[in-house]
């Protein structure tokens, strides 16, 4: 019994040490390299390693070379059993403000060990609230949007692209 306890304790300490020493900044840049062929570039950001988490601030997001958004902060926490990316203050570029309210206050993306093939996301902003689930096994995803008054009033054309449910929310299903 004592040996098992020590084994678990040492394992935990090893994982904690590994997480602490992992070059998170380099891993982040490596992930950025993987996004580049998809046309997604996160540029001009400051990356700060906080030991167990990585903070990215003042980033500009480009999609297909088009400036798409300014991002306030991104907190990345990869613990293996629980992984989370919290993004705050996403301001969409003016080009898109006719289609979508520009401010997304926060976006939380979570994945944990119990459902490793499922990623959940929650976004809150001027558009209202959106919850998304992505199933990596089935390669599909669902977004359920609860629109704000502003979204209902000024962005009806965008909402028309989504399927309205009986509850008054809007649903978008996609495959990848």
């Amino acid at each position: 019994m004592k040996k098992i306890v020590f084994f678990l304790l040492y394992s935990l300490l090893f994982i904690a040490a590994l997480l602490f020493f992992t070059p998170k900044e380099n891993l982040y840049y490596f992930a950025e390299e993987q996004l580049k062929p998809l046309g997604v570039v996160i540029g001009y950001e400051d990356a700060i390693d906080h030991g167990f988490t990585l903070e990215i601030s003042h980033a500009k997001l480009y999609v297909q070379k088009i400036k798409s958004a300014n991002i306030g902060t991104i907190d990345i926490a990869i613990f293996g059993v629980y992984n989370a990316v919290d993004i705050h203050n996403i301001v969409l570029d003016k080009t898109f403000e006719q289609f979508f309210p520009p401010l997304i206050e926060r976006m939380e993306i979570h994945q944990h060990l119990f459902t490793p093939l499922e990623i959940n996301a929650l976004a809150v902003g001027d558009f209202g609230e959106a919850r998304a689930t992505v199933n990596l096994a089935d390669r599909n995803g669902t977004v359920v949007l609860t629109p704000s008054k502003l979204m209902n009033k000024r962005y009806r054309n965008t909402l028309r692209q989504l399927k309205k449910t009986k509850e008054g929310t809007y649903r978008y299903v996609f495959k990848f």
Partner: protein
Amino acid sequence: MSLNFNPSLMRFIRNLLIIILVAKAISLVMLWYFQVEGVNHHPNPSKTPKYQKYNANNFIKPTQKPDIRQATEPTSQEAQELASYGPNISNMVLKGLFRRKDGGMVIIALKSRPNESDVIGIDDVFQGYTLKKVLKNGALFMKNSQTYSLYFSEDKQEERYVSRPSAQNQPEEDEGGIKQVSKNDILSYAKNPKQIWKDIGIVEVKKKGKILGFKVTRIKANTPFARLGLRKNDLIIKANNKTLTSYKDAINIYKGIDKLEALELVVIRNNKETEINYEIY
């Protein structure tokens, strides 16, 4: 003097140090393997001079700009005639209209929010009212099988003539084969891009992962796009001498459209390259 240490504690510290060393060694291997620098966006400054279209005809004869104020003023008789179709919609204001024999569209807003105007075509619904017909000085709507009319109010005369497109519904074409497009049409789309996607459907056409151009998949009849001479299945490959090879190129044209004085589109139609020229007045 002899020092006595707890052997269990010593063992624990030793193991802890080994763990830390192994973790650090692994992280150094990772650091060596993931030796990459951050990716940044490097915009290529355009060296292409501002697009300008020169037409020899313009040197000889100045462009005849149609006077949009030449539209006939509504008479009280016409207003009465409109009202005879059904009750007037009191909570809305008609800001402009654009009429063809077989359709048209109106610019409309709620009186409570006059600055938030919407452009609607035939059979589009606004506040529960379905636009059925665009008349000379107003429009007819249907709601719950009842016909309603909406016409320009007296105090909105000025606004009407500003926002109303040219009295000629077709873009004018001068002797040089250049179509003339009202800046108001362009500006109404620039201010309300949602309307673009209502009126026209465009998808990118790719070959081996590279964008060849943007194909017109759908074009709504009686809209400014239809009158621009674009047709379904046209593949737009160039705009103002700039080859459209990315969404960025298309967005750049869109961003600067309100400043353009001329627009040249090159489209592939029936396997033939066709140039369409517009002068924006």
